[in-house]
């Protein structure tokens, strides 16, 4: 082997140059970071991003057609540049995974004041080094694909093209598109129509989309019972907290050594306490709480303990049942099963759509997607307010093209497997 005789920067380039180039790009990014601070995606909104994208593609095509025999271009379209580039990107992703991340909208004072902060590690995805490395990966991907078009084509290359072009589109679209992405939250009260929304910085903006909230409905899971420590309030047993989801009357259950039986269930109750006793009566009104009457027995109790347990509401306080000096039965806040906003959405262009918006069931209208985001949590299931997130991402089709190409490419990889006998 005469490999050892080759000096750095001598043709053909290998892994060493790969690490130097990738490291150099990271270092350049670091210098830009120290000089300019983080990249603000908004500075790259259209037409800046489209220009950058067009220049990138044009540059790649020029390299491919005009510098086809240049050894650097050839090196950039092979594994010797790819592997070091991947490792350097991997390293920055590991750093990103190990350091707490802050959004670009959080004020600089919230970030830890140290050297890593100035190096952009706490906002890795908008740091110069990270973004430049992503572009370097795009360059390698582009040149690799172009170079492959010169080789003799075979069915096996379908997988290659799907995977590499797919990643080029998904990564490129995501990178360039982040400048054009718009996200707002809009709070709407039942019966009202709203078109003003807040951006991430809290600025109010009028949108070309208006939402009329017809009704907002919350469905909850059945109430649960737990046994808690009177002193700490922690659910017992501490090492494996137990709970019982109410399934109907007459089914005793075991919790932390107690046998608990539900005697009465009032889904909508008024829980009124005075100094002497608690009275619980049905109340079919907003603000009613869930209440369960339970009987608790355990070997150390002389007589069973009986009484009401409730998780309260914005009107009524919660109610626990003391078993003994150390523990009580309590009812945690019920978990939300589903929340639905029945809405009518209007756009400036004159479109109108009636729909139910839920988590995982957003509504698309023109180039906006409207998501169920939140509600008035203080009011719980009686919330008359629904919060939506409105997202506009004009580059989504580019990214999705990439994602679906990659999905097909993965399927191809599974079926075709690796190329055989490459080493012989």
């Amino acid at each position: 082997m005469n490999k050892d005789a080759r000096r750095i920067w001598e043709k053909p380039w290998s892994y060493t140059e790969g690490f130097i180039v990738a490291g150099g790009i990271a270092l350049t990014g670091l210098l830009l970071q120290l000089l300019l601070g983080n990249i603000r995606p908004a500075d790259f909104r259209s037409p800046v991003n489209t220009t950058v994208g067009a220049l990138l593609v044009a540059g790649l095509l020029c390299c491919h057609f005009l510098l086809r025999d240049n050894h650097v271009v050839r090196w950039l379209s092979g594994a010797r540049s790819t592997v070091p580039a991947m490792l350097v990107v991997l390293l920055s992703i590991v750093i990103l995974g190990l350091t707490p991340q802050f959004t670009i909208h959080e004020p600089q004072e919230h970030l830890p004041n140290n050297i890593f902060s100035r190096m952009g590690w706490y906002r890795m995805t908008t740091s110069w080094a990270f973004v430049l490395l992503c572009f370097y990966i795009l360059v390698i991907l582009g040149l690799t694909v172009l170079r492959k078009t010169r080789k003799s084509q075979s069915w096996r290359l379908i997988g290659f093209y799907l995977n590499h072009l797919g990643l080029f589109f998904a990564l490129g679209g995501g990178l360039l598109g982040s400048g054009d992405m718009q996200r707002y939250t809009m709070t709407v009260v039942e019966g009202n129509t709203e078109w003003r929304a807040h951006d991430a910085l809290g600025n109010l903006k009028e949108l070309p989309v208006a939402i009329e909230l017809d009704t907002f409905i919350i469905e909850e899971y059945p109430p649960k019972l737990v046994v808690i420590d009177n002193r700490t309030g922690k659910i017992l047993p501490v090492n494996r907290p137990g709970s019982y989801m109410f399934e109907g009357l007459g089914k005793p259950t075991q919790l932390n050594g107690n046998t608990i039986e539900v005697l009465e269930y009032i889904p909508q109750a008024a829980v009124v306490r005075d100094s002497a006793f608690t009275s619980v009566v049905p109340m079919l009104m907003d603000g009613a709480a869930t209440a369960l009457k339970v009987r608790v027995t355990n070997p150390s109790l002389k007589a069973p303990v009986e009484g009401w347990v409730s998780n309260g509401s914005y009107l009524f306080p919660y109610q626990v049942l003391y078993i003994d000096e150390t523990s009580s039965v309590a009812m945690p806040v019920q978990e939300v099963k589903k929340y639905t906003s029945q809405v009518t959405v209007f756009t400036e262009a004159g479109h109108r759509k009636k729909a139910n918006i839920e988590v995982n069931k957003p509504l698309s209208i023109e180039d906006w997607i409207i998501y169920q985001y939140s509600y008035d949590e203080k009011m719980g299931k009686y919330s008359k307010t629904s919060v939506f997130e409105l997202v506009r991402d004009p580059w989504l089709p580019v990214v999705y093209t990439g994602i679906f190409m990659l999905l097909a490419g993965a399927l191809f990889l599974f079926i075709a497997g690796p190329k055989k006998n490459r080493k012989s």
Partner: protein
Amino acid sequence: MTWDHFIFFAIPSVLLWTVASAWALRRPKKTLPALFTVLGLGVFFSFILGMWISLERPPLRTMGETRLWYSFFLPVAGLITYQRWGYKWILSFSTILSAVFIVVNIAKPDIHNKVLMPALQSPWFAPHVIIYMFSYAILGAVTLVALYYLFREEKLQDKERIMDMTDNLVYVGVAFVTMGMLMGAIWAKEAWGHYWSWDPKETWAAATWLGYLVYIHYRLLKTSKNKTSMTILLLAFMLLQVCWYGVNYLPSARGRSVHTYSVR
């Protein structure tokens, strides 16, 4: 069906898989090992199905539940590998690994309840997690092959055969990791408004994916060294561990990940 019944399904399954493994090691015919593996899988899956019905949601939410699928998919992956490439030891491998996870689940079962928060109520939930568990099973098997190679390199006769085998398995594993990850991205767009948010789980998923891609690209060159290739696989599997459950313990990720579903 509750967690208390698990042992009555787990033991017969492991026994059936053990018979299949022993048979595969001694006899060249593939029919009987396949039959016994499938029977074991049937018994095991009936427990999963029972849990599914009694929980009224797919059992995919907690760590214990994903371990359940992992134990199921290890023999599946083993069987596919055995049928496709005929490695006779793979069934023993997958059985032992699966048994380890079964023991963990018997010793430390999760708290199970029916709650499935709105973000998880999606048709993407089952395929996203199941495909990931399948890929983890394959990549777990690859890791053991890599360890075996690294410890016994001097004594090995047919190194190229082992390298071919890891290539085969890594390609299958990476194919499934890619599918799981991208389905996650499409789901995230539907549930959270963006396909990629660099949430800690996503970050480590990207790191894992990239780790295995490094292996694939490194292996493309004739100059690649077997030892380095196998070491890359070990490092990639460590990234996978961080992604799977390590993020739950990372100080940088605590309380920040939207991927935490084990409610207490």
